[in-house]
């Protein structure tokens, strides 16, 4: 069924395809955050990512920051980058990362403007305008599921998520894998309680081992912090919504990943090495989780919710879907795909899968999601330790 699903995308010099052709304003320093926002306000077509952390980031945080920033800077949906930095070392580093991917870049460093943010603003708006015009000359060409990389996410779930929208997303994950594409699942804490199901799907014993280790490591961190994850899962809100046990909650969440073998466990923000299903060991909170998928190259996110959740990725168009009929009726400018018909018998899972894949091909080819139209997106870099 996968060969009929095609879309139109921008071909990048590095071989990837882009569903969007964004100018990214990438601010590398907390000092330049307000300047980057000012530049972005003058260039409304551009997207802006700012990071509050720069100096004194060490160890695994420094490694993660570099992986995430490089991933954002060369994201397939990004066509060009305006790098804004307080110092030339980082400014040159990320300009070089962008240029090595074959994309146009402009670099603006506060040191070069005598730390006059207004002069830098003027130069950045002009450079950004030139990049936007260059981007506007690019055209889309046909692409297939094998070009596509998606992330699967849930946020503010309810019982309808576990039995309808997550299994639906699982079917899409299977279809993308069958079509030769890449799928990423994450939110490690949601594997807790369903490890036995995921381990059965591990492509190798080493992958099963890494899945177990990933859950155990976070369990130990929680325990060290005095948090009783076993006794507090499901939480009172989950219980009120009808979820009875940890297994039930976890099973509902991992259904998003479908039934394909798990090829490997990725670090947060690490790109999959090839096609198939991959699981990312990462924070569960949506803002962090989505950014991990994005830095790893996810073109698009399928994001299930029960009663609603407005947040989306900034760089990856995020298709928000719910099977909660009330949410679909009330949140008419948030829910991109209404899956409530699965529960009412109006749609089978097969019908819904075909309709959702068609919807995704539209979004891939340029149809806007509500999250894009309303500007609900952001990207963030997670932290593990303390700044020096």
């Amino acid at each position: 069924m996968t060969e009929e699903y095609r879309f139109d995308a921008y071909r990048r010099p590095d071989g990837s395809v882009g569903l969007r052709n964004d100018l990214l304003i990438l601010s590398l320093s907390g000092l330049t955050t307000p300047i980057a926002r000012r530049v972005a306000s003058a260039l409304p077509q551009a997207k802006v990512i700012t990071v509050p952390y720069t100096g004194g980031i060490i160890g695994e945080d420094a490694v993660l920051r570099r992986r995430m920033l490089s991933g954002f800077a060369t994201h397939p949906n990004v066509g060009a980058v305006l790098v804004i930095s307080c110092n030339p070392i980082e400014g040159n580093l990320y300009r070089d990362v962008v240029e090595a991917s074959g994309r146009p870049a402009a670099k603006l460093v506060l040191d070069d403007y005598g730390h006059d943010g207004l002069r830098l603003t003027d130069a950045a708006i002009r450079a950004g305008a030139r990049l936007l015009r260059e981007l506007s000359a690019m055209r889309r060409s046909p692409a297939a599921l094998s070009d596509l990389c998606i992330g699967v996410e849930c946020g503010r779930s309810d019982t309808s998520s576990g039995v309808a929208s997550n299994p639906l997303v699982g079917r899409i994950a299977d279809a993308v894998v069958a079509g030769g594409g890449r799928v990423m699942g994450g939110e490690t804490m949601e594997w807790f309680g369903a490890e036995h199901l995921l381990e059965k799907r591990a492509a190798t014993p080493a992958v099963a081992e890494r899945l177990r280790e990933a859950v155990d490591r976070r369990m130990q961190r929680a325990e060290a912090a005095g948090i009783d994850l076993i006794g507090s899962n499901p939480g009172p809100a989950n219980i009120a919504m009808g979820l009875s046990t940890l297994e039930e909650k976890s099973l509902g969440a991992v259904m998003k990943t479908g039934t394909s073998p798990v090829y490997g466990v990725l670090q947060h923000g690490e790109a999959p090495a090839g096609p198939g299903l991959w699981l990312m060991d990462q924070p569960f909170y949506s803002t962090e989780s989505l950014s991990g998928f994005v830095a790893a190259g996810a073109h698009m996110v399928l994001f299930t919710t029960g009663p609603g959740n407005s947040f989306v990725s900034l760089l990856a168009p995020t298709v928000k879907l719910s099977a909660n009929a009330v949410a679909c009726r009330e949140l008419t400018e948030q829910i991109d795909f209404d899956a409530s018909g699965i529960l009412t018998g109006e749609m089978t899972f097969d019908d819904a899968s075909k309709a959702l894949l068609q919807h995704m091909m539209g979004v891939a080819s340029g149809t806007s999601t509500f999250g894009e139209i309303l500007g609900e997106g952001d990207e963030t870099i997670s932290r593990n330790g303390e700044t020096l």
Partner: protein
Amino acid sequence: MAGEPEYAGFMLHTDDDIALALVPLEAGALVRIVTPDGPRELEVKEDIPLYHKFATRDLAEGTAVIKGGEAIGVTSAPVGCGMHLHIQNLKSMRYGVS
């Protein structure tokens, strides 16, 4: 489908031990349930809140309860067909949570 009763229950797999209430159900209601193999009907024996679970067969104490083809816990008391299945009679199997 004019004239047909609306579905008020949902089963993910036909062989599951539980169905979900798609609307709040009152004790004694005859519920029409969506399943992958077509509709079935059963009477709920207790009030079931929206999206909560009810048993689709009689379950003895200590039975692994199957939802979506996978065990989601074990019954801590006998649960009759049509009864509310939740934290009062369904417990985690994985971590010995009481």
